[in-house]
């Protein structure tokens, strides 16, 4: 009988010690509400490699410009709309043609309204040495909103005359090459 009493006491002691000493101190579990991830994603975009031929018509005569059109739905998706904080489009053009150009990228929305234009000029390379030029277009605030509206990209390369430039023929050496990538600053939160 005495033993039983001791068991109860010990049991009570163990349980009460465990309860009274077990606690969660100095913590704030509400902090998860502020979980924010900010990855930066880098993705290749358009590449172009065009020799002199591309800028000539069937008779071997220079055209005014060449253009191409891409319809896409990436920028107008809900994910981009909610999470894209900032974007940079990085272009690098290498020109070995003795011809100056103007590059123009026009972003249109679904109703074919022009939302944003990127344009830059490329100098001619008189000795056909690679002439590298770079252009970075930053999209934030209003330009970012314009990008998010866009669903069509119209790329136009216009031939420009310059003091040292020549007229392109089928015999013209060199080519014009464009690399491009997008750097997207995302903000993912609950």
């Amino acid at each position: 009988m005495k033993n039983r009493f001791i068991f109860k006491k010990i049991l009570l002691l163990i349980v009460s010690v465990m309860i009274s000493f077990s606690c969660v101190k100095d913590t704030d579990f509400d902090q998860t509400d502020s979980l924010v991830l900010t990855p930066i994603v880098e993705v290749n975009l358009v590449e172009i490699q065009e020799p002199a031929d591309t800028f000539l018509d069937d008779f071997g005569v220079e055209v005014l410009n060449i253009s191409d059109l891409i319809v896409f739905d990436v920028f107008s998706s809900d994910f981009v709309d909610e999470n894209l904080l900032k974007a940079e489009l990085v272009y690098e053009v290498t020109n070995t043609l003795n011809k100056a150009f103007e590059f123009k990228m026009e972003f249109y929305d679904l109703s074919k309204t022009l939302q944003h234009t990127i344009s830059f000029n490329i100098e001619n390379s008189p000795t056909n040495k690679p002439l590298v030029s770079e252009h970075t277009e930053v999209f934030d605030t209003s330009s970012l909103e314009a990008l998010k509206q866009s669903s069509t990209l119209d790329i136009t390369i216009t031939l420009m005359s310059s003091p040292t430039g020549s007229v392109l023929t089928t015999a013209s050496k060199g080519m014009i090459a464009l690399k491009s990538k997008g750097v997207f600053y995302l903000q993912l939160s609950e």
Partner: protein
Amino acid sequence: MRWLLFLGFFVSLQAQNKQILYGFKEVPQQILLNPGAQIDYKGYIGVPLLSHIHFNAGVTGFSAFDIFADDGRDFNQKIQDVVYDMDSKDFFGFNQQLDLFSAGFRFKSSSEKTFFISFGLYQESDVFFYFPKDYAVLALEGNYNNLNRRFNLGDLSVSAEVSSVFHVGINKKINSKWTVGLRGKIYSSIVQASSTENYGSFTTVEGTSNFLTHRIDLDMKLQTSGLSFATDSTATNQVDVLKSRLLLGGNLGVGIDVGFTHEPSPEWTIDASLQDLGFINYSKDVQNYEVNGYLEYEGIQSVFPPIASDQTAQEYWDEVNDDFEDLFKVDSTTTAYIKWRPLKLNTSVSYNFGKKNNKECNCLDKSDPTFQNRVGAHLFALKRPNHLQWALSAFYYRKLFKGLQLKTTYTVDTYSSKNVGLGMSAALGPVQFYIMADNLLDYQNVAKSQSVSLQLGFNYIFKNNED
């Protein structure tokens, strides 16, 4: 979300190891850990639903305190620190068991040899996943500034299962030195999902004709069984399905436990057991998902219309789109699969000492000729998908009275190197109660704990006549 984190981090108990229960002679449930354990009573009946309640889980690499400490530091900075601190071998584990019924009795064969038969049905839940380090880094940083870094998509390894286990064991004391035992098990898997055989990578390297080349290599698999009941129309149907699966109506498997106890001398004891040497064949209600493919993406080539190929940038874009869709296309199959049970090893060596001296205390009418103390070392190992989980314990067992025994353990394992556990078995007449918990040092602030474990239960014991 908050409660999920709370459950995952705070209730982080140590998975599967029952170092306090192992070898605790007075608690009948110890024979589930070693079918060849010593049994000093005629029989027992576990109080239904209350004979063994076991709950434990663990997390390596960090504790809730690292993230939720109210120290004014930026929450996202703390998350980052934890992510960079952990690696893909860190894991989260959770295990829970509940005895539905259990009992055991000693029988005498015709040749006057005795053996002990025990049986029961318990329900078990097990969740285990490795920390997907590369996914976490990719989510934190993205691929920018990570040129040439290979993000290993094989870091994803998750498994979860709820099952019931029906078991029958036989235990035989061959002579004064050897006791051996064997337990047969029938597993019935109620629900199971696992994605443990994943391979693949995502790498961004410098490109040739464009800035970058993105390489995506995927070979990933998710296997599930028994999940369709969740989409069943009515709640009562769902309960019926779960009930039938609990009673061996799920995906079935078989397995055995083996074990022995060897006493080379009265003072020394060596014992060992292997648990869950078996498998489950998942053939009913199976749904598997697979993603397979390789893609190298350099960008969209803009080819202006006059050129001979006749391909426009739009066509390139569409092609790229199709390639990506193909890459991430999920193939779904219902092929049956087999999974081995997580194999467990327990072994210990111990030394008994301190018999009660009856002559000095004649006032006690009943003597106890057994040793009052026991010290020893115990090793536990568990085979996980990608590694072997282990724990090494030193223990001290003390018989305070005939009806009260204590055992304390000090454990070193993957979770912690200062895990102190305490267990108690108390008998009031034939009713026996036990409770065991570990990581007691962390009870001062559970948030700092990486694992805690708790087992408790009630049994009705039929003692030997000589008691």
